[in-house]
């Protein structure tokens, strides 16, 4: 009744192609941004930032990155953990080597380095396709983690191979290290997330994005109509790895403050991000958010319900968490096979017609 485009006239192509064609959506978007930037920072505490917002934002960035590669360009990747490690270690080396430069640049440069590494490991995608391509990215995953574990230069020769984020600030506000205020940590992750999401949205709806989708849907056909597969695939790997690298840098520097290649960036991380993308919805910006939210928030929520409210023993609660998350994934699939994003789209369709279903 309220949620419809009637009366919302488009008079230019520009209007017609906007991200949120419905007025209510646009309003919702601006309100969400306003709340995220101007309301929440005043209320967050350590618990909210460290257990919910920081991991959610950072995983959302990683999921956006992987979604570009897997969802838009159709290249399966199981190397996300390894690429996050590149971002983290690059950021660490930069932070230690150039303490006076703003951390934002360190994170961006770390993303750039990851992009280069991603392109190198993406080269086999020209020849290997489908599930088989996963082996190239798996090789990246295991080789990179092994490398960061083995070459002492990466962790500045510390005894155990752990890296620790020193204190750094942006405009005089501390954003890494133990003395970071909750809101500062929240804001830096949010700024990066919004930037990345904005970039992802605009890339995917432009020519680059259409080339990616052409390659995804059928690469030979795309090649025939003039898409250069080399450029399209490599740009997808580059952009995707850039985002994933940023996620890795933030994950280490802002969120955890200490990391170790094998433990923090192992194969389970690659799978986790892939699950987020698949469960959220392949080829959807909203899906990346929804998937990250589901995989980050659901366990915390279940834990608080089962242990905090119902007082179950922790191990039974942890096992039930897995059972419920697994059960929900299967139920969602049976109800709506194309991920949370599609569920959301269908809800919107229904809302548009409500209360008159025909």
């Amino acid at each position, binding site marked *: 009744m309220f949620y419809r485009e009637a009366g919302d006239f488009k008079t230019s192509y520009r209007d017609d192609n906007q991200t949120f064609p419905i007025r209510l959506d646009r309003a919702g978007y601006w309100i969400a941004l306003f709340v995220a930037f101007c309301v929440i920072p005043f209320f967050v505490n350590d618990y909210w930032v460290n257990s919910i917002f920081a991991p959610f934002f950072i995983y959302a960035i990683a999921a956006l990155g992987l979604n570009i590669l897997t969802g838009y360009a159709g290249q399966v990747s199981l190397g996300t953990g390894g690429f996050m490690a590149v971002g983290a270690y690059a950021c660490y080396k930069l932070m230690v080597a150039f303490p006076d430069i703003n951390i934002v640049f360190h994170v961006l440069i770390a993303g750039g380095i990851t992009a280069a590494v991603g392109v190198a490991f993406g080269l086999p995608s020209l020849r290997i396709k489908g599930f088989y391509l996963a082996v190239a990215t798996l090789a990246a995953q295991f080789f990179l983690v092994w490398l960061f574990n083995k070459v002492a230069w990466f962790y500045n020769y510390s005894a155990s191979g752990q890296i620790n984020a020193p204190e750094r600030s942006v405009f005089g506000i501390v954003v890494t290290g133990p003395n970071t205020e909750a809101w500062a940590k929240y804001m830096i992750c949010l700024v990066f997330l919004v930037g990345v999401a904005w970039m992802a949205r605009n890339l995917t709806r432009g020519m680059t994005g259409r080339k990616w989708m052409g390659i995804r849907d059928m690469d030979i056909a795309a090649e025939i109509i003039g898409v250069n597969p080399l450029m399209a695939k490599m740009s997808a790997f580059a952009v995707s790895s850039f985002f994933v690298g940023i996620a890795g840098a933030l994950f280490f520097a802002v969120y955890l403050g200490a990391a170790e290649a094998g433990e923090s960036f192992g194969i389970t991380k690659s799978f986790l991000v892939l699950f987020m993308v698949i469960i959220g919805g392949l080829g959807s910006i909203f899906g990346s958010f929804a998937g990250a939210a589901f995989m980050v928030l659901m366990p915390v929520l279940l834990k608080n319900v089962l242990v905090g409210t119902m007082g179950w023993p922790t191990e039974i609660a942890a096992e039930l968490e897995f059972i419920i998350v*697994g059960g929900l*994934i299967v139920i969602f699939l049976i109800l709506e096979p194309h991920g949370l994003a599609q569920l959301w789209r269908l809800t919107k369709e229904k809302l548009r017609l409500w209360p008159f279903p025909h």
Partner: protein
Amino acid sequence: MPEQLLFAMEVTLNGLMAGVLYALVALGFVLIFKASGIFNFAQGMLVVFAAMTLVGVQTGQIPFAHLINTIFGTKVHHFGWTVPTILAIIVAGAAMVFVAWVIEKYILQHLIGQPDIILFMATIGMWYFMHGFAPLMWGSEVMKLDVGLAQGINETIDTTTYNWFGYGFFIDNLDIVAAIVAALLVTALVLFSQYTKQGRALRAVADDHSAALSVGISLRFIWVLVWSIAGFVALVAGIMWGSKSGVQISLAEVALKALPVLMLGGFTSIPGAIIGGLIIGVGEQLFEFAVGPLVGGATQAWFAYVLALVFLIFRPQGLFGEKIIERV
């Protein structure tokens, strides 16, 4: 003979043995992929569940004991009997058939005709479910798996090779048993699929789902059948790996070892899984032996994947995969 060459031979033999174990896990993936086009992410968890069920039944553990105790305040843990190994294996096998039936009835049946990625996602759901369900049912402590398989150095090989070369080779008895069992299993599978009615139906389904349906083959039955076989393969793999290390949730990680094997051998080929397993097994052991010490060791972590990658660059469909024909 120079010492290094003897060492390399020993390493190669052991690599072959390790390869057989990898192949055993990969086999479970191939069966399901061939019959239904599903990449079964939960195969590793099937291994854990099968092995836990076997040990649980064998030692007379009460399922869900912890949950029961929490809800009713009781203190139960064991029935107080032990079950003969053979019987326990049969019960565990039956449990795997039941799991296959449940998966077909409650998950796959609702997803017929969906794209591969959706079915893959469903197996992710199963993975999560079983990751919680298996320890909830049998507890998360290390369970000792003992079905009476021989373990330790094979004396005959040790003495024979010592007499020949002056250096005794080490081959683990368990590995020899595993190799024999894997050979039997593969032969049985091949015979089954070549000479029985169900086997032919299975191959028909693997070739073309709708054509198979149209000649009256029950897709549902075939799916239950193939998941049961995969469950049974998981049980065998669980016994082999579990005898070595005890059974616990990290046994699921052996599935990761199967990934490069699959990619090398091709997702759809049973001989591919075996030969891929052997190549990976030998390759990674030899590489660790020859190059490992120079670069600091632990190269097994990535070598299998790089090896598979190199092969794939020359043969993108895997060694035995069906040729990919692309048309517009």
